């Protein structure tokens, strides 16, 4: 068994991923800001000029509250899914606990996420409601979301080792999710019978919570928080279990 320093290893792996990504970009961190701003502008144009009757106030902030979590989710999930297969060299030669590879990949996306959350908060301060005490809920809802993505990634990264098609399924699922989570529409436009199901999707729940906190300046409802925590914890536990079951045979399939 590997009896090392988990935190030190995790930190080194996260720093590695982050440095590799940004050292190869001439504008570095700027790209993290550019993508959500361009998407925000495009969606705002479509839903305020092309379809002008959406009745959503402050649409740019509204849509940015959807884009930032959605971007984080898709980038973390897709990179995480291929992380085990792509680190075959490491997995086949160093007896590190395998779980750490996908988790480190997800966490390295959090650096990128931090920059985008910074952008979102600045936009809210400048164009929106400004600071209020309910902002203290932000670390809670984001923490639960990261737990969710880690769980999902543990599952798909292990499956991807056995069947390389899993990464393409994940890619397609992400494209589909853009429409199936309320990124550019409000939850009250969704018929009531479907809206309850939306809250069980941790990504939708996070977007709803962000809007409540940042746009309405209120605390997220307790049922929403419960559903978010419940489904995230469940997915994480399931992810650990699946990964644990599958990791013994990784060596043979890499």
């Amino acid at each position, binding site marked *: 068994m590997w009896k090392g*320093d988990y935190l*030190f290893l995790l930190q080194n792996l996260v720093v*590695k991923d982050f440095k590799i990504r940004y050292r190869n970009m001439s504008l570095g961190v700027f790209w993290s800001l550019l993508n959500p701003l361009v998407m925000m502008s495009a969606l705002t144009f479509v839903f305020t000029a092309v379809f002008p009757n959406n009745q959503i106030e402050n649409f740019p902030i509204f849509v940015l509250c959807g884009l930032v979590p959605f971007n984080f989710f898709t980038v973390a999930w897709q990179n995480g899914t291929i992380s085990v297969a792509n680190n075959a060299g490491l*997995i086949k030669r160093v007896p590190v606990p395998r779980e750490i590879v996908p988790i480190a990949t997800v966490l390295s996306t959090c650096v990128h996420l931090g920059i985008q959350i910074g952008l979102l908060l600045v936009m809210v301060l400048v164009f929106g409601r400004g600071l209020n005490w309910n902002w203290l809920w932000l670390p809670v809802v984001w923490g639960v979301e990261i737990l969710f993505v880690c769980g999902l990634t543990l599952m798909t990264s292990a499956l991807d080792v056995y069947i*390389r098609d899993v990464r393409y399924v994940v890619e397609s699922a992400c494209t589909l999710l853009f429409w199936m989570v309320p990124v550019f529409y409000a939850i009250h436009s969704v018929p009531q019978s479907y809206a309850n199901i939306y809250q069980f999707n941790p990504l939708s729940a996070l977007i709803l919570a962000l809007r409540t906190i940042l746009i309405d300046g209120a605390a997220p409802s307790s049922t929403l928080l419960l559903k978010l925590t419940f489904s995230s914890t469940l997915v994480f536990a399931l992810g650990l279990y699946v990964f644990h079951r599958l990791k013994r045979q990784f060596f043979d*399939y*890499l």
Partner: protein
Amino acid sequence: MKVIELKNVNKTFHRSGGQKLLRHYLEDILGKTDPEQFFALKDVSFSIRDGESVAVIGANGAGKSTLLSLVTQLVPPSTGTLDVRGRTAALLDLGSGFHPDLTGRENILLNASLLGFSRKQAHDLYDSIVEFSELDDFIKEPLRTYSNGMMLRLAFSVAVNLDPEILIIDEVLAVGDQKFQAKCTEKIFEIRNQGRTILCVSHVSPTLQLLCERALWLDHGQLVMDGPIGEVAAAYEGRLTRQG
């Protein structure tokens, strides 16, 4: 004390292993390919005591690398039991944890953490690793600016300076120029003389016969001979000349 113990270990691989797409599974189910298995190791039993230095010899494909993967616990045996006590450091594929875009310093810390070292231990050992590698100012440069020899020197320095309890060497005694090679050999002897356990896979050479007292001879996944290195090496070379 026994630090490594194998009892009736078998390791089988599927011939159709490796990367798979969905259609490969469909083909398996539809019976287009038969999932043939082969034994990489067959009924291998031996134990190594604390402080022993043991060589593993054999032709290519005899199961040497599989044996090392088992001992470093990268892969579980198919059947049989395997027991390893103590922290192993493997000089398997040198620098497998290295990344070309990271600097020498970052790679040292990353590799140390991969091998199981705490932050404090890694920082304490950092200076001696840099000094041993003779890389000086290059340590602040990204690895892709290094020559092949420099990279091997760095990888070797990390592995031997991290004070492993069991050192596993896989045909890497030829590192860098002759001067550095001599230094590496000396370092390995020093580790052995400190009473550490050494498991070494290599071609039979005078250095190997000096380093190890005992040898295991693997042939087609089976342990053919286990004894003092002089006798095993003689028998192995005798077999080779008879075949040749």
